[in-house]
């Protein structure tokens, strides 16, 4: 779920479902069974890879599934709501750690979203109208998105090395901004290192989506704005942004879900033990499950994470869809 798709924007729009295929009703009477036959393989696959594992996962969260029972999970004693009570005990160490990880992830997500969207919006506005070298710049921007995440994150961790990395070389030796060489992958700095790398990797996707959205804005709208005396800023405010509404609605949601669930970047950076200051929620659950081998509490945390994401998504969609008619 980490290295993910530009396709999701396509996927995310309700447009696909809302469309009525022309000529469909005629076939409908004749071959009502055919679509089900076509769907059958996928339904079986969905059952095996999504639905059963999810039900098992929810079931596991109500079991005392410690290392003794992982090989024989039917023998695990029931735990009722104990796992949930345990992980939500915010005055105990484990509950505190979960809460800390949650807030770290919230701050991480907000900062990454704001930076990625901001950079992408600026870059998309700058490259909206043709100029010499535009194609080259656009391709350059997509490179971070094209590289496999693990390869580019490994490169960043070399760049962020204290003694032989390029970042400290520039900051300390060449510009002299800092007097001492800081560690970037240990302690508090690791949180900011994580943000920079996540933004580096994510903003090209937002750029791609916004550029695609801008390319379909009719030129007449800009001409009309220009005739009305609107400058660059005003035409961005009154033409570009309103036209990007539906793109932004989907884009922000997708960016939120990816960032909140991010695992590849911290795992490649820190291996199996992330510093406390950069303990993102996916890593937290992962470490907890595979260090303590208590899959019961791990599953309880996963279920809570899912409920949180569902709630945020539902509220977001309700709010953005309700406001639309007023704005449009």
């Amino acid at each position: 779920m980490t290295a993910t798709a530009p396709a999701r924007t396509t996927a995310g729009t309700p447009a696909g479902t809302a469309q009525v295929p022309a000529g469909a009703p005629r076939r409908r009477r004749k071959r009502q069974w055919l679509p089900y036959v076509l769907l059958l393989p996928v339904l079986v696959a969905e059952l095996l890879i999504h639905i059963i594992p999810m039900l098992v996962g929810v079931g596991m969260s109500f079991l005392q599934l410690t290392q003794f029972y992982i090989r024989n999970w039917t023998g695990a004693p029931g735990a009722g709501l104990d796992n949930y009570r345990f992980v939500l005990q915010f005055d105990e160490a484990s509950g505190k750690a979960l809460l800390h990880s949650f807030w770290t992830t919230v701050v991480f997500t907000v900062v990454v979203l704001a930076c990625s969207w901001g950079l992408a919006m600026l870059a998309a506005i700058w490259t909206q109208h043709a100029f010499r070298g535009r194609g080259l710049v656009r391709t350059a921007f997509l490179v971070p998105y094209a590289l496999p995440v693990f390869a580019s994150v490994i490169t960043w961790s070399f760049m962020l090395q204290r003694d032989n990395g390029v970042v400290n070389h520039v900051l300390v030796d060449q510009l002299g901004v800092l007097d001492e060489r800081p560690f970037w992958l240990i302690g508090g700095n690791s949180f900011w290192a994580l943000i920079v790398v996540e933004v580096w990797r994510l903003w090209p996707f937002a750029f791609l989506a916004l550029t695609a959205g801008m390319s379909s804005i009719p030129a007449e709208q800009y001409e009309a704005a220009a005739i009305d005396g609107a400058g660059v800023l005003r035409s961005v405010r009154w033409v570009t942004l309103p036209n990007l509404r539906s793109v932004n609605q989907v884009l922000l949601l997708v960016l939120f879900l990816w960032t909140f669930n991010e695992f590849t970047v911290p795992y490649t950076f820190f291996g199996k033990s992330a510093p406390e200051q950069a303990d993102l929620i996916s890593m937290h659950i992962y470490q907890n499950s595979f260090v303590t081998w208590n899959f019961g509490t791990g599953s309880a945390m996963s279920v809570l994470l899912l409920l949180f994401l569902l709630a945020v998504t539902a509220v977001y969609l309700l709010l953005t869809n309700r406001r639309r008619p007023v704005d449009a």
Partner: protein
Amino acid sequence: MREPTWFRWSRRIGLTVLSVFALLPVWVMITTSLKPLSDVQGEFRWFPSTITTEAFVEMWRTIPLGRYFLNSLVVSVAASVASVMLALLAAYAVSRYRFLGRQAFSVTVLSTQMFPGILFLLPLFVIFVNLGQTLGIDLYGSRPGLIITYLTFTLPFSIWMLVGYLDSVPRELDEAAAVDGNGPMGAFFRVVVPAAMPGIIAVLIYAFMTAWGEVLFASVLTDESTRTLAVGLQGYATQNNVYWNQIMAASLTVSVPVVIGFLFLQRYLVAGLTAGSVK
């Protein structure tokens, strides 16, 4: 619209800064892969002191990179081909028919995309281990096991992308095929699939890229013999000496197939995005 001078200057400066930000790791990756080991142990150098391909030769010996490469290739190809084949049939049904449960199916597929991978990892791990224990089916640590888990993320977006591409194939083509005496499946394979081929290949490459970079499942569900590149590359760092030049050479090598695929794909991705977000 005439662009004011301040806008042109802000564009020049802004785009330069962003390009440097985007390409700096690429520069570091390429130059470091051409450095001798002594160059990466001291202070960072922008250029190699001497250009050598030693890292590209040595990297295969420091860790079993060849094996990881093969594992990644097998798993990614199998997962992407399987998910596109499954998804194609489902996408045809969703794109061309109105049937009871169509909406429910679409919403289910869409919503599984937002589920955190960790939610599937824990139960799949337990299921695999217990299947091995009780039925003797060894999915844990095996390539088929990893391929199955990769379908959890390649299948949903393959279905969604393909519905989009099939929707863009005009219905008149189906009807013309029907006039020529083809049944719905004949029309599908003889007319719709060939017309949607660029899109199908785009989805295939995209699924391949996602599987190629996957870390979460691979870090838990593989052992030394089935390890993929995404996890195996970390092996360089556990050596006594950190061979940064070899790590960068290996990172560059494993990136090349994916970047080429992406450049090919770019056109279709942008087309797909525009279609999806504007409708």
